[in-house]
């Protein structure tokens, strides 16, 4: 129902109260076409945000490496001095932590950037009519970009740690694809909530800090009850992380059921989130 200027000039748009609710099931095709239509805009915004971010910094893209590297060295040290008794890991610990970090940051940064996306859009939101979903997608796009440029560094870490991944590591991007749906789905919810109540963003930061330790990022997935249930089953990110690590080290999924249920949950969250966002977002524009 957006009036985004369209190629066909004789298009008629009607705005009335609750017009999205009245659209019923038809709303899905509308949402879908709107998204396809605005794909170019998503790309533009991703490029915009990335180039704006690095334009005024000397280290530029290096900042993306700094965070996971520092964390990696911290935990190597903690493990080496036995402050943290972490058992054997399937790949050398340095590679293990860095790999875990990459997946975790894809999730946590993705959710947190989308949470702020509506608020930072500012006047764009209150003065221009465009599909607001674009903001969430472009926020996640930025996170994907960061993930991609960390890959060469991961390979360097592999070399230094003397680790030879299985060829099936090439499948990792496909395994992680559903994780993006989880990120966007959550992004839909948190961006709206943050638009209305700013506490949400702050709370989210805390949750993400704690969440890293509730995910097998710096330690191997626990195998004993009840920790295994809490970490591996309840936390959907674990399923993706473990699956990605499995493909890198052993070459097959050791817990396919957990992975599949994570995928189902992610897709469900994505579609529910999308629908929710589409419904509620017009009310946010006037309240942000």
């Amino acid at each position, binding site marked *: 129902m957006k009036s985004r200027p369209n190629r066909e000039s*004789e298009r*008629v748009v009607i*705005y009335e*109260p609750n017009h999205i609710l009245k659209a019923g099931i038809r709303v899905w095709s509308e949402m879908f076409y709107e998204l396809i239509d605005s794909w170019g805009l998503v790309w533009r915004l991703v490029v915009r945000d990335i180039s704006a971010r690095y334009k005024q910094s000397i280290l530029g893209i290096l900042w993306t490496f700094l965070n996971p590297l520092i964390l990696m060295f911290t935990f190597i040290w903690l493990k080496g001095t036995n402050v943290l008794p972490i058992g054997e890991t399937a790949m050398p610990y340095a590679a293990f932590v860095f790999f875990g970090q990459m997946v975790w940051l894809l999730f946590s940064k993705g959710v947190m950037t989308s949470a702020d996306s509506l608020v930072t859009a500012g*006047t764009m939101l209150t003065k*221009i009519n465009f599909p607001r979903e674009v903001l969430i997608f472009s926020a996640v796009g930025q996170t994907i970009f960061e993930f991609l440029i960390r890959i060469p560094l991961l390979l360097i870490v592999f070399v230094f740690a003397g680790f030879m991944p299985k060829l099936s590591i090439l499948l990792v991007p496909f395994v992680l694809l559903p994780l993006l749906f989880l990120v966007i789905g959550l992004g839909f919810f948190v961006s709206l909530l943050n638009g209305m109540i700013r506490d949400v963003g702050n709370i989210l930061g805390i949750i993400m800090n704690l969440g890293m330790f509730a995910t097998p990022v710096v330690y191997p997935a626990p195998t004993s009850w009840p920790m295994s249930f809490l970490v591996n089953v309840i936390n959907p990110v674990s399923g993706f992380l473990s699956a990605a690590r499995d493909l890198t080290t052993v070459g097959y999924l050791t817990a396919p059921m957990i992975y599949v249920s994570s995928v189902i949950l992610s897709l469900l969250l994505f579609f529910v989130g999308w629908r929710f966002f589409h419904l509620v977002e017009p009310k946010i524009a006037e309240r942000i």
Partner: protein
Amino acid sequence: MSDVLVKAEGVTKKFCKSIKHLMFYGMADIGRDMLGMSSKTDELRSNEFWANENISFELRRGECLGLIGPNGTGKSTLLKILSGIISPDKGQVEIRGRVGALIQLGAGFHPILTGRENIYINGSILGFSKKEIDKKFDKIVDFAELQDFIDTPVKHYSSGMHVRLGFAIAAQMEPDVLLIDEVLAVGDAGFRAKSFNAITEISRNAAVIFVSHTMPMVARICSKVMVMAQGQSIYQGEDVPFGIEEYFGLFQQEKTQVIGKQTVKLLNITINGIADPKAVSKIYYLDDLVIELEYLMEEYTDEYSVSIAIFDKTLRCVAQALSRAVGKIFKNSNKKQTLKIIIPRQILNVGTYSLSIHFVANSSGDGYRGDKILTHFQAIRSFKVGGHIVGHAPIQLEAHWEHQ
């Protein structure tokens, strides 16, 4: 070419005054939405008010609607509803074709990026593909006159440059419906003239809605006008000058001010025989305008001259008459004096005007130099020129037309 492009029927919108209520109502509305119940949008809860109430109009291709009214009467809200940024609480809006909205120029500009990058970003926000922008890029830069600064970050632009770039992008959109909020006021005279030409050109082939506080501009480019006050439309129609009069009627009259040495005491003033300061004298085009003054003057000066100035509602001085210009200098008798000023066959256009009177001490020097203002009565009275308006210039010259 006369198809209806914009149709608003009973458009109503409410807003909330307090942020706490706003959050609470927002959540309640969202909760309802989630359960699939339509929100109750047609009644006010506490702390809410109608920002737009029952607004209806139709606009065809080739028409330009001027939306005027005091600040905070819901003009921008209406534009936002028409552009789909917020949805109405009651009523319906139907829009045909491609919409271009200039509600805030440069919304979406990223300060760190260059003008060139921002043209592409803004263009795609407005719904253009890269190819289309490529094609229009040079035109946009030309129009904005930013050739030398197109690769400079936008944050170093002046506010005028900002506006120019924003308008240039939008002007190249070729929309069917163009919504313009008061955004052009920042540009310099040259750019304003240029943008008004562009709007006029666009409006030939589109329906334009134009929010402005610059009445001469509204008079010049609008074919219809809607006057809004407190969220409601109090006049709409094709009589643009009448609408503008209504608009000015919404404001308090300019206060009478007495400036300068208080050496003159005005005892009585009549305009065409009416002396009561509360009654407004009414005259017509080509009537004689007769002003009679009765005053006391202290012995400050021996000779003085008098001038009158006529202001329109925008406080623009539209006409003056100076006694000195026709060599009239008066002797101060230090007693009660009277002066009758006759302006034969007055040529002011229809409207309400206010009158100012200056008493000026005469110097023996050449010309006007050295003349001292004794007392200046600003907006001392107002009068009305009645009748049917023709044209929009404040002065309608009486010409001789010789046709063969």
